[in-house]
């Protein structure tokens, strides 16, 4: 069965699209713990960047992408239900993974369940490909599946993320897999699962609005800055994972499929492509995202999320892109920031 395609056919005339095309050949990641292979060509295709275990499982003794087939089937069924009921948290029998709970076991299980040989995987944490946990998870998949990995948002078919959505707009055919610590948006209003389940069943979300409004009366603002609750497809209130609310608008009507995995809490949920994702707000206090006064000091980008770097003990600091791939891409294209501290 060689030709199972991800290629959608519409109206009899196949749209040739969803296969990622490498744009630039820089900064592809080599995560293999195996001996160096010959340097990739300047424009490597995903095939060439494949890990050594591409056709067989990369790591002796373990199945392709680590999980056994029975576990994958169970997770896959949960994913299908999650897609069919957008925003609803599907219980699944999360397995113990070789990384700790809290390190992304839910996202890792979702990625392992959907990953195939032709995928190109990108892993980010805090928007960056080179944070230690992103490196560790990317290596895990390179070792256990041999799939190609990349740091480039445009090249990836699957992007696993913790805390950010890439700045580069996602496109059809891409899947964004979120690592989720607490999937229940109502958890901090009601700690009991038995209660929150009923609230979702009844679509009873008044308490969430009350909580947000209490912030306004106390601070003049909604004081939730990340993991800001959203309503999906007009029905379920959903936790978008601890992304800053800056990223919430990117979820709305995204061409990409968004999957959420919470390993410790054993829940999977999803937002299909082209689905309404509305951040909860009030007529007199509309939802607003964070704004930064200065552009990225490295690439000059505005309207992106920035990390604040402390430069010395005299309070000098600098704001730079949180999305390292986006920043590097802009600099490669000749954009330059001031390089100045503020």
């Amino acid at each position, binding site marked *: *069965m*060689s*030709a*199972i*395609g*991800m*290629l*959608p*056919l*519409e*109206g*009899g005339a196949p749209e040739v699209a969803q296969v990622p095309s490498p744009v630039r050949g820089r900064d592809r990641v080599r995560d293999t713990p195996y001996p160096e292979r010959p340097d990739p060509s300047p424009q490597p295709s995903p095939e060439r960047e494949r890990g050594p275990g591409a056709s067989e499982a990369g790591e002796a003794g373990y*199945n*392709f992408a680590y999980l056994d*087939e*029975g576990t*994958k*089937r*169970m997770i*896959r*069924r*949960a*994913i*299908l*239900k*999650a*897609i*069919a*009921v*957008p925003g*609803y948290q*599907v*219980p699944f029998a999360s397995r113990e993974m070789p990384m700790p709970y809290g390190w992304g076991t839910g996202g890792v299980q979702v990625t392992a*369940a*959907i*990953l*195939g*040989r032709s995928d190109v995987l990108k892993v980010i944490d805090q928007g960056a490909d080179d944070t230690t946990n992103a490196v560790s998870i990317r290596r895990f998949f390179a070792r256990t599946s041999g799939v190609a990995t990349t740091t480039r948002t445009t090249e990836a078919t699957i992007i696993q993320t913790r805390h950010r959505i890439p700045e580069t707009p996602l496109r059809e055919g891409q899947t964004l897999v979120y690592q989720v610590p607490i999937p229940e948006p109502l958890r901090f209003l009601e700690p009991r699962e038995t209660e929150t*389940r*009923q609230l*979702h*069943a*009844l679509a009873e979300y008044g308490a969430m609005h009350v909580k947000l409004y209490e912030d306004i009366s106390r601070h003049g603002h909604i004081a939730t800055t990340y993991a800001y609750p959203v309503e999906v*497809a007009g*029905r*379920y209130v959903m936790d978008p994972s601890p992304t800053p609310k800056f990223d919430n608008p990117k979820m709305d009507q995204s*061409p990409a*499929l968004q999957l959420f995995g919470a390993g410790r809490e054993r829940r999977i949920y*999803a*937002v*299909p*492509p*082209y*689905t*309404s994702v509305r951040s909860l707000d009030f007529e007199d206090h509309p939802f607003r995202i964070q704004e930064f006064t200065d552009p990225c000091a490295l690439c000059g980008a505005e309207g992106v999320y920035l990390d604040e770097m402390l430069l010395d003990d005299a309070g000098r600091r600098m704001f730079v892109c949180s999305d390292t791939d986006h920043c590097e891409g802009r600099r490669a294209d000749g954009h330059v920031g001031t390089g100045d501290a503020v």
Partner: protein
Amino acid sequence: MLAPGFADPVHDAQGTFRAVMDALARPGLLQRLDAGLEPPTPLTPELAAIALALTDADTPVWLDAGLAAAPEVAAYLRFHTGAPLTDDPARAAFALIRDPARCPPLARFAQGTPAYPDTSTTLVFAHDAITSGEGLNLAGPGINGMTRIALTPLPDSFVAQRAENRAGFPLGVDLILAAPGLVAGLPRSTAVTES
């Protein structure tokens, strides 16, 4: 002699799943599914591939009259999936329907519960043909605006049944629509109307 299952169990199952996942994520958009299976008739290669990819001992499977009448089909599915077969559509995790025109009413399958809407049946239809760009209008999550799909054959009073199914959201059944070499999805979230 039992017909073989997937030639490459790991990657064929993954490929089939991804086609089904994309189908449900983009309702009405056709995904290629070249199953490479030759199951006993009247099971189709696409029904067989989806069953092998998604069912196992944890998922009771319901067969429609045509499939249930062929003992080789049950033997094939039992051997390759280990899934228990059930006579009761309301207990089925998956239902395989060879003849969509004579499918029991959707309401007879498990609809899930308000607390656990995921405990519903996923129906897999084997159509003779599916074409997009004509036929029924589809709208809802996963659809950029509106899309169209034509099913041959079309189950009786399909639009009315789907409207009822949609009205019960988040309860309801999800449909996986297979045709030779193709698969499409109609999750419960999709609104289906006559064009």
